[in-house]
């Protein structure tokens, strides 16, 4: 075998030990793609050594979605998870999702209708992880496609990637728990910045910290906002995408918790289609505060960008029930606001962060 970057081994260990804490006899489902080979080999080795079953679900699109199949199969089958896959979803003890695309724009040209059906079809797979019934982690493997998206060589991107994931997570957890305590004690959050003045209630809601558990990289603490509370406007200035389609410069206006006005400088149609996905897609499912100091610039990669220190993100759609969320939707789309160049966070009128720097 060719030379394997020693950081791959550390990364695999982090996933198996810290993120999941794999125990003997567990059935660990691993959803991934071929380009992650070196990490997958190492992860499967570590799981096997612990006396557990690594169950690899590797395909070209991300299992349980099969885009080639979904483009031709009868609609009623696409909208329903295969019984074999449902059984696996209901009986797995933990799951790893490690995306490793060859092309970040490589999604098959499925119609919006088919894509929505496929999303509905795989929803049961996410049930036990959205409720945190079992340990899970969503992560990536550094590929040329990600590097290209970030405007970097693969070697540069790998350095960035491993700086963001191979951290002293216990140290990060301490800092985030300190901020979280302050937020938990507050009733109202106000986000102010360029073209932005938005208030959200957290009354009765307690947040959670991800210090390298369910996401890798971790580095955020997050809440399920009170569903009918958001008021005001916000400009999301970090470029993002929706299932492979780029969307930039998103402006949203909220009244009583719902999006009443929306526009995007680029990808406006994609934004409007997402908002109209279902009843819950115009309400907020998450407020997250990025705290990972290893991430200093956006990479056009939500998993990393939303953890960037000095940013906040709001998700449209589904919320996490384990932290009190009640919003139901097939959508969960994190939109990111950079506060470092002139923004602030206020809790019940007290300034707690200014230009990305904590004042608490």
């Amino acid at each position: 075998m060719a030379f394997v970057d020693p950081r791959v081994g550390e990364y695999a260990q982090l996933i198996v030990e810290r993120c999941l804490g794999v125990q003997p006899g567990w059935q660990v489902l691993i959803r991934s793609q071929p380009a992650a080979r070196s990490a997958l080999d190492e992860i499967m080795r570590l799981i096997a050594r612990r006396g557990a079953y690594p169950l690899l679900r590797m395909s070209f699109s991300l299992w349980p979605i099969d885009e080639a199949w979904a483009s031709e199969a009868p609609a009623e089958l696409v909208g329903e998870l295969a019984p074999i896959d449902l059984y696996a979803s209901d009986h797995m003890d933990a799951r790893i999702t490690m995306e490793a695309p060859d092309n970040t724009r490589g999604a098959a040209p499925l119609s919006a209708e088919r894509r929505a059906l496929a999303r509905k079809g795989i929803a049961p797979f996410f049930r036990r992880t959205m409720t945190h019934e079992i340990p899970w982690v969503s992560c990536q493997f550094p590929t040329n496609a990600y590097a290209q998206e970030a405007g970097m060589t693969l070697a540069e991107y790998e350095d960035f990637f491993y700086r963001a994931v191979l951290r002293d997570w216990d140290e990060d957890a301490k800092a985030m728990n300190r901020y979280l305590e302050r937020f938990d004690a507050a009733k109202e959050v106000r986000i102010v910045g360029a073209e932005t003045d938005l208030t959200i209630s957290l009354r009765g809601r307690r947040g959670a910290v991800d210090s390298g558990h369910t996401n890798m990289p971790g580095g955020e603490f997050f809440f399920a906002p009170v569903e009918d509370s958001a008021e005001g406007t916000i400009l999301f200035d970090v470029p993002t995408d929706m299932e492979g389609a780029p969307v930039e410069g998103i402006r949203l206006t909220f009244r009583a918790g719902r999006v009443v006005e929306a526009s995007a400088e680029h990808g406006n149609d994609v934004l409007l289609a997402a908002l109209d996905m279902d009843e819950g897609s115009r309400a907020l499912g998450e407020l997250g505060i990025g705290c990972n100091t290893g991430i200093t610039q956006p990479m056009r990669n939500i998993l990393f960008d939303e953890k960037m220190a000095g940013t906040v993100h709001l998700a449209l759609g589904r919320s996490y029930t384990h932290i009190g969320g009640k919003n139901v939707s097939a959508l969960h789309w994190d939109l990111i606001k950079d506060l470092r160049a002139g923004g602030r966070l206020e809790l019940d009128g007290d300034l707690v962060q200014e230009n990305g720097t904590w004042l608490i």
Partner: protein
Amino acid sequence: MDPRIEAYARLLVDCIRAEPGWQVLVRSQPLARPLVEAISRELGRRGARSLVRLRFDPIGSAFVREAPLELLGTLSDIELHEIENADSYMAILAPENNREGTDVAAERLGLRQQALRDPHEPFLRDEKPWVGCYYPTEAVAQDAGMALSAFEDFLFGAVLVDWEALRREMERIAERFDRAANVRIVGDGTDLTFSLDGRQGKVDAMEANMPGGEVFYCPVEDSAEGVITYSEYPACYLGHEVSGVRLRFEGGRIVDASATSDEEFLLGTLDTDDGARRLGEFGIGCNPGITRHMKNTLFDEKMEGTVHLAVGTGFPQIGGQNKSAIHWDMVKELRHGGRIELDGEVVQESGTWRL
């Protein structure tokens, strides 16, 4: 895309005769992407589900190498459920390196194969359809001694054939063997007899192998007597190539085995279990599209003018009673002076039929 890939995908889906609502496991490797995606689309068109399961190394996965031995002999509940509930499966090999897995201890491979055998029994018994085949990769071409483009021409030439015509030809051969009791194989270093008494043959045309092109039997388990020497071609199994295999049978059992290379692997494999020293299959190669040996059993055993005998497990649906975790087909060339006799009558000489 090469239009032959779409035709190949349709052929494979025809082989399993996929029906609406079926859950079909599509087991393959990353290099087969164009074929796997074409199969998924074709299964979708026919209203069946495509459950793609890719592996880097189908033999020696990290689990097989690293799992504690007591775990290796078991299947997880999810894996067992998947095999038991699949209506069909396809195994499409697309190796990057044909020697992957050869460094795994035979004991570990054996434990894994034993764990997989029972739930696959309905497939072995033909109660559920499956098909095994190759996608043309550099590694397979290299072992065949060919450039990739030449190997692609060869592979598509061997699979995209008139299967109905070949089926009729093979049925004529099977009809003659079905009537016979005793088979004698004579050739270089070889004089072996065994009985087919009470056994019916099976014709492989668009069945579980692609390419197909063989007529095969399960010999009466205690009948083999004599010697066979695989002097022309190496016996290939699990990535190993064993040259000059010579087997002597008494009462159906191998009592003496030797090889001129990798003898240790031969002897170790024959000691896997009780059934590993008895014959599970006698097959007659009938595919005219395959004219040379390429160290690839799936193709080699179908080569016209050859026969093959497998040590290990037999096929219960055609009367086979031998059970083993192994099934190792070894190919014997008969085109250079060999012959097949049925109840004393020569039916094939130097690879030419005299029916």
